């Protein structure tokens, strides 16, 4: 049953989207480059993206579910669901995509003080600051808590020295949220703090890393005697691991497709375009047809499982370690999806340059998907978490 208010809200949203969302932004998203990311240095934004972004921003609908005082739309859970449904209905793209929205924001809402929330959340909502994440280090990948980047207490500030790696888009980012070691003597999980650092600070340098996809979405970031005000410490000193795990849960849910309503082209439509059908109306390659059906059956089941998880979360059962399930399953399916796309497209999935190959869009995205099961905690780490935290498979001692 819908109340009058929700029915009205639905109509308002629908009308708003119809009026403001450009048709070019109602097409399936191919990769991260199809989004507007905001930020001080941002040169991305096409005219259509900027128009859509401005319209949504004015209502706080870049972050519809955040409180209004921090630049959000202040929508209730029910309204937010309607909002997402209406966006999905026409395939409208998110007006702003950023790690500020998907990762730092939720952590600040939970752990930040009032000043920090007012300052940073508002700028995230308005797309003014591009945030990147400083977690991994050369010696701390899967063993993240082994991180060595040091933040020394110098009275009114910290002095940060060290190196981060896989900092997504650090070369475009304005600020970085970092895990740093504030107590080198404590057990490894207990000496970590969560710090926000302005990328323009003296002593911060960043360098893109060229990946197998030929692109450089990730960077190495170096900190050489960087002064960071203590105002930028989130939560308590040495309590950063709790924030890190909270945030990783969010990141994994995000990677796992939770809350993602953006539309992708169905794999079988892609295959029908490329391979065609035989006389009985079936995809003409029977073996690829089976491969596709297996992937799409899993996609359908995963989508419903996401719905189920949202229902459970609403009834007070938090997602917790289940985020590892979503992260693992989604990324493994996505890799299968691109393996099949390359197989379906033949040389069109192998070409790397030139108009005939859309500048290697499929081939490059295929390479990129190999990182899905590495970033945000490898598939193996997710399986460890499920085995230990959900199944309690460990020694009884």
């Amino acid at each position, binding site marked *: 049953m819908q109340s009058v208010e929700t029915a009205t809200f639905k109509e308002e949203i629908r009308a708003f989207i119809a009026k403001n969302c450009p048709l070019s932004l109602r097409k399936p998203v191919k990769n991260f480059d199809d989004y507007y990311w905001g930020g001080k240095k941002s040169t991305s934004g096409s005219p259509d993206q900027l128009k859509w972004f401005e319209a949504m921003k004015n209502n706080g609908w870049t972050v519809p579910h955040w409180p209004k005082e921090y630049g959000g739309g202040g929508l209730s859970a029910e309204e937010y669901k309607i909002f997402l449904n209406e966006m999905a209905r026409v395939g409208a793209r998110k007006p702003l995509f950023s790690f500020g929205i998907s990762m730092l924001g939720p952590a600040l809402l939970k752990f930040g003080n009032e000043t920090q929330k007012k300052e940073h959340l508002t700028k995230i909502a308005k797309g003014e600051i591009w945030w990147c994440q400083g977690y991994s280090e050369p010696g701390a990948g899967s063993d993240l808590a082994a991180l060595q980047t040091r933040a020394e207490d110098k009275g009114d500030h910290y002095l940060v020295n060290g190196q981060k790696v896989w900092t997504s888009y650090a070369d475009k980012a304005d600020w970085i949220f970092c895990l740093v070691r504030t107590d080198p003597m404590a057990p490894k999980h207990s000496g970590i703090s969560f710090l926000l650092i302005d990328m323009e600070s003296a002593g911060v340098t960043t360098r893109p890393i060229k990946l197998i996809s030929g692109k450089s979405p990730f960077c190495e970031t170096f900190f050489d005697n960087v002064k960071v005000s203590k105002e930028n410490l989130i939560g308590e000193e040495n309590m950063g691991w709790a924030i890190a795990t909270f945030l990783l849960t969010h990141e994994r849910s995000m990677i796992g497709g939770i809350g993602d309503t953006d539309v992708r082209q169905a794999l079988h439509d892609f295959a029908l375009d490329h391979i065609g059908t035989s006389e009985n109306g079936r995809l003409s390659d029977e073996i690829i047809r089976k491969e596709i059906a297996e992937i799409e059956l899993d996609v359908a089941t995963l989508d*419903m*499982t996401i719905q189920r998880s949202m229902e459970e979360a609403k009834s007070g059962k938090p997602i917790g370690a289940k985020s590892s399930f979503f992260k693992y*399953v989604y990324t493994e399916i996505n890799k299968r999806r691109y393996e099949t796309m390359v197989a379906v497209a033949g040389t069109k999935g192998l070409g790397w340059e030139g108009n005939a190959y859309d500048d290697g869009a499929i081939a490059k995205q295929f390479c990129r998907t190999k990182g899905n099961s590495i970033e945000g905690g490898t598939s193996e780490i997710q399986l460890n978490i*499920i*085995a230990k935290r959900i199944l309690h498979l460990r*020694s009884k001692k």
Partner: protein
Amino acid sequence: MIYLLNEEQSMLKDSAKEFLKSAPVAQLRNLRDTKDNIGYDQTTWQKMVEMGWAAMVIPEQYEGLNFGYFGLGQILEETGKTLTASPVISSAVMATSAIIFCGSDAQKSEYLPKLSMGEMTATLAIDETARHNPNVIKTHLKTQNGEFLLNGKKVFVPDVHTANLIIATCKDSNGKDTLIAVNSDNNGVSINREHFMDSRNYGTIEFKDVKITESHIFVGANTESIEKVLDISRIAIAAELYGTSVEAFNRTIAYMKERKQFGVELATFQGLQHRCAIMFCELEMAQTAVLSALNAIDQDVEDIRLFASIAKAKVSKVAQLVSNEGVQIFGGIGMTDDEEIGFFLKRARVAMAILGDYNYHLDRFAVLNGY
């Protein structure tokens, strides 16, 4: 709500779980070893009837509980865990649904109250081929001297040797798909009980010039409504098979926490932990597929075919995985008849095949999606 149990459904599930402690795997083993004539425990079935399990989906006007398929699915999951043999699926789901969705008012009035009260059991005869293919129907009616004669043969019919009433697909005298109800003691009906890998009850049935009156032909039966009944049945099997799968998995996990090799529990080996974590993920997906499909029946969604094929395919695939891994992880002991994990493997293989296996439903899923 689609996936969450309400209070009544949770209570029903809990009471089923409690009751089924009296019908554990050992009961099935005993029925098998004593070559029991019935093949299920009659006292257990009688209690199931008393608890209303035969009445779950029957409308109130026919003395049913009208509790819905989602609720019934919770019971089936529990019977899947204990591998309890009973006519719940053959009679209370398959035959009952056929009457509800294809029967006339008179047929409903005649059969449903009796089924609801456990005064009779019925079954649904579909297959005529070794591999499920409901489109192959050679069983047919012909008119002779103003009456109908039924001829044909059905295979893999669940609980057929104990059912009082057999509902079967056949071609009517115009060559169209329909359903007929035949009393098992009619002249010309011969039933042959067969023993399958899972020690449950199936058989073949042969119709030789069986006289059928108009009142035994289901007026509401056509290709579409029969397919709906099949899909409901598939979803019920999937719910039961999910229970079987999750129990096989839980037993495997429990065993890994007890069994020691090299001086440590199997649970400490990462090579096994990851396989278990993958099974956990697959079972989560299977559970979703079952819950959404059960809900789809109750919501009377426009096309339950997709839900049914997703559920039957996904659960079958997962059942194969966890039953194989269960036997493997139990090791040598898993190969013995004394250890119960083998019963799960064997039940899984039969349930996977009933009304279409993984390949059948994967193919159907693709067709339904237009490729």
